[in-house]
Every structure is written in structure tokens, then in C-alpha cells.
């Protein structure tokens, strides 16, 4: 069983082919980062235009890499949301056309489900497991009970974790994307120098909040006046430490509920942060559960995870119609109660 996956929901144009033996036969990612850097963030219309310009050629090269034809595939899977909807349209229409012309099943995949199931592609683990999904658009703790079965324990009530990194990086003049920029700058910094707040720390439950932390970074930076390199490094390190403290605290609460039923898994672009990974690994070890994190290239947006989620759903016979409507919002656990004090993102 072989599935083509397509991902266009943010600023990476990606295609990949995976098989049932958990082999990634080919994968290609075309980053649009250089297009968006001048604007200091992702511009949806710029992203959508670039996806259309490059997607079909990228898919053709991915098929060549894997030395397979469309006829050799069992299904076409594509991110159907959530994400920047202009880009999602491009991927979905391309996938529908390929599916129709090649006579293959079409699968519209929740991008978050792609992240959530990646560890089954990389490590072949069984359900259930506890997942921290932290990216530019999300920060959630979920119990993954099965394909399509997610129980949300907590979510952010304001900014996503990756969003907090981007905003802090912007405030420090470190540029976009903020995650790698903060991490690089923080390497030489003193995480103890600035006593930044730890929002939600010690509070019951598993929800997150990052907007107060961003405000504290701004106020601290303004209080210093002109920033030296040392100031920037110390502030970046202090910020990163505060995020890690909060995330470890919230994940600890989630483990209190989840117990030792399965491993702690981290996914999403923020999982690329080494400080955060180290903290979560230590937490898992202290609780006697395994810690798993997919390789970095499969934590950030990619199409192998979409192909894999498609394969998992195809095995269960769950395909989608060509009338599928792209979904800008698409919660993994629609039954989860709205987080108290949450904004529109929760």
C-alpha cells in the first residue's frame, strides 16, 4: 500500500510517498521562507501564489525520486485544513484532480492529525499515547486513542507556542522565523538574568497561555532601552526557559491524568527546540514513561505525515468525496470543552 501526500497549508510546499512498511519512498519540501522574510511573517496571498507555482512540478519530482507512477499508488492524501486557506485550496484541488484522473481514492487529512500520527510512522508505536502538539498555530495536549480519536486535555487560551517564539524574536529584532532565531541567540545567554512570568504555572489543568510572557519580553526590552548582544542573548534565554518551564508544568499535569498508559510524544515545529525537548525528556523519565520525538524534519510541516495519516485512514476504509470543502478551522477533538478565557484559536 502506497500513498502520495500533499501539504500546502502554511509556508512549505511539500509532497511525499510512504508505504505500509513505514518507509518514506520519497519526500520533498520547498520552503517559502525567503519569500516571506521581507514582510517579517507569512503573507497568506504570497504563500498561496507560490504553492500554485510550484506544487505540480514538486509532485512530479517526488514521483520520479520514488520511481513510481500515479498508477502505482493506492490513494492521494492532502491537507484539507486547518491552515491558511488559500494554500489549502491549491493542494486540495491538485489532489482531487490527480485522484479523479488516476482513478484513485481521495483523502482530505487534518494537518494536526498528520502531526499526531507521525510517531507511528517513525517509531511504529501503538495507541494510546500522550501528545504535546506545539507549532506556530497550535499548542495542545491530547490523548491519542486511535486514528481519528483524540481527547484534548488542554490547549492555549491565547497565542500558540510557536507564535510566542515568533513575536518574541520580532521584539528582539531577531527576525523570522522566530523559533530557530531565539534558540540560536539564547545559546550564549543567561536564562536566570530576567525573571519573566510563567503563565499558568502551578494552576490546575493543562491549558497554556503565552501572551503575558510576550508582553513581559516587550516591557523588559523597552526598560533596557537599546539592547546589547548580551541583553538579547539573556532575554532570549530567559524567554525560552520560561516557555520550557510552563510547557513542562502543563505536560506534567497531563501525565498526572494519563498515567503510564503509553509514551509522551512531542510533535509540531516547536518540538525542534532542544531546550524544550530536554525538559520533556527529563519529565517523562521522572514519571517512568518513554519520551519520543520524531526527527526534526518530520516535526516541522511536511508531506510524509500527510501521506502516512492518509495511509492509516485508507486502511480503515475512510476515504473522502471529491466534494470535500477545505476547512480553515478543524479541531482534532470537536467535543472538547472551550478552554476558559480562550480566544478564537482554542
Amino acid at each position, binding site marked *: 500500500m502506497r500513498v502520495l501526500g500533499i501539504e500546502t497549508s502554511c509556508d512549505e510546499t511539500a509532497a511525499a510517498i510512504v508505504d505500509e512498511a513505514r518507509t518514506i519512498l520519497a519526500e520533498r519540501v520547498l520552503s517559502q521562507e525567503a519569500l516571506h522574510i521581507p514582510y517579517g511573517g507569512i503573507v497568506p496571498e504570497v504563500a*498561496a501564489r507560490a504553492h500554485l507555482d510550484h506544487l505540480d512540478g514538486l509532485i512530479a519530482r517526488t514521483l520520479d525520486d520514488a520511481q513510481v507512477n500515479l498508477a502505482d499508488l493506492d490513494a492521494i492524501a492532502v491537507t484539507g485544513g486547518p491552515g491558511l486557506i488559500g494554500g489549502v485550496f491549491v493542494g486540495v484541488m491538485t489532489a482531487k484532480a490527480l485522484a479523479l484522473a488516476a482513478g484513485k481514492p481521495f483523502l482530505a487529512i487534518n494537518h494536526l492529525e498528520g502531526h499526531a500520527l507521525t510517531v507511528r510512522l517513525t517509531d511504529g508505536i501503538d495507541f494510546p499515547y500522550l501528545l504535546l502538539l506545539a507549532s506556530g498555530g497550535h499548542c495542545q495536549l491530547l490523548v491519542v486513542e486511535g486514528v481519528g480519536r483524540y481527547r484534548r486535555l488542554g490547549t492555549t487560551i491565547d497565542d500558540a507556542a510557536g507564535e510566542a517564539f515568533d513575536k518574541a524574536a520580532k521584539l528582539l529584532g531577531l527576525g523570522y522565523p522566530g523559533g530557530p532565531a531565539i534558540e540560536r541567540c539564547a545559546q550564549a545567554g543567561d536564562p536566570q538574568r530576567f525573571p519573566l512570568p510563567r503563565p499558568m504555572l502551578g494552576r490546575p489543568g493543562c491549558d497554556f497561555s503565552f501572551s503575558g510572557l510576550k508582553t513581559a519580553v516587550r516591557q523588559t526590552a523597552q526598560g533596557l532601552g537599546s539592547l546589547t548582544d548580551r541583553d538579547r542573548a539573556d532575554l532570549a534565554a530567559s524567554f525560552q526557559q520560561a516557555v520550557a518551564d510552563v510547557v513542562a508544568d502543563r505536560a506534567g499535569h497531563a501525565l498526572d491524568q494519563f498515567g503510564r498508559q503509553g509514551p509522551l510524544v512531542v510533535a509540531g515545529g516547536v518540538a525542534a527546540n532542544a531546550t524544550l525537548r530536554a525538559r520533556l525528556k527529563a519529565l517523562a523519565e521522572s514519571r517512568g514513561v518513554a519520551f519520543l520525538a520524531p526527527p526534526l524534519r518530520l516535526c516541522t510541516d511536511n508531506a510524509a505525515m500527510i501521506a502516512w495519516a492518509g495511509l492509516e485512514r485508507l486502511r480503515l476504509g475512510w476515504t473522502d468525496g471529491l466534494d470535500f470543502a477545505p476547512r480553515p478551522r478543524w479541531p482534532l477533538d470537536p467535543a472538547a470543552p472551550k478552554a476558559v478565557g480562550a480566544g478564537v484559536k482554542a
Partner: protein
Amino acid sequence: MRILALDAATSACSVALVEDGRVLAHRLKVMERGQAEALMPMLADALDETGLAVADFDRIAATVGPGAFTGIRIGLAAARGLCLASGKPFFGLTTTRAVAGGVFADERPGMTLVTVVEAKRAELFGQLFSPDLEPLGEIFAAAPQDFVAHLPNTPLMLVGDGSIRLKDVLRGPNVSWSRAPGHPDAVQVALGVAERADQGHAPLPPRPLYLRAPDVTLPK
């Protein structure tokens, strides 16, 4: 010569399967949004009616714009996917040419055809055509009150989903309004690309004709 044609660029969604100028199957729905859901089921339905597969066609055609940015991409992403899967070449047509093709034969003699495409902005897109559908100049963007300056002093036949916005600024004995529907139709896309190819024009590539930069400003 079989042509598979699509349009989702403006206020409609349509599919046409055409062989040597004869329509084998046709689907059209007028809609402001929802083309991403509607387009491929309409194509699947039309193919079923004829018993043909995508691979049985010689050319894949679609409108390239101008129109709604998302709508243009819906049609072009689908067309590019069909080309990739079938290995068949792409033939593009402007929405203005597709709309002009819809003007009825008895409305054309002696007229300058004025196509007006709605852009959901202050400005409209326009292009002039001769009665036999030769473009008279490039596509332009103009607000309704400025549109008049682009028009010649000849009898005019207006057509297109944006033409309604000119009702207040264009009057007089020289001005007529076509009975044709204002949106592009995939039948006209198929016929239009065939005519242009027969006239020796190189096919338009599957690149969007946005005619407007993204709404974004560089940070100071």
C-alpha cells in the same frame, strides 16, 4: 480533437467536454463561492455522461484570469493536476476572451465588444474585442467612472458580470447590453482555445493572470 475545459475564476463554476467544436457534456452552476467543492464532482459527472476518461482528451483548458484570486487558483490547480496525471498539454484562456465568446452572433455585427469582469474591488477589469473576437488592446483595470475613458466612440456591446456597475455611467444610443450571461463558461473556454490555436497563437501557460499584487506592504 477533444478538449476538457474548466472555469472557476469568477462568479460561476463550469466544465465542458468538447470534440471538434461539438459539446459532448456540459455542467455550469452560477455561484459566488463553493467552486472548490463543486468543480471536480461536476467534472466526474460530465465524464460519466460521455463514458470518457481524462486520458481520452487531447488538451486540458482553463481560464487563467483575471478574476477572483482564489477562484483562478481553484481552476488552475485542478487543470495542472489533470495535466500532471494525464501528460496532456495545457491551453489557457483569459476570462475576458471567454466572456466575449459568449456574446451571441446576432449581437456582434458592427459592435465593439466590451468585456467587464468583476474584481470585487473599486476597479473592474476590462478588455475590448472586435466582432470576430480579436482583442483590441490589452486588459485594463479601471473604476466605473474611469472606464469610459478606455472606450472608443463606436457602437458598444457590453458583456460580463461587472458590466452592471457601468449602468449609471454608460448611456446613450451607442451602448447595448448583451443577452449573454456575464460569467465565463467552460464551453467558450474550450472553443476559444481551439480558435486561438487554429489562428496560430501559442497557448497561454497555466500561470495566473492576477493583474494585481498581493495586498501587503513591507514593514518600515
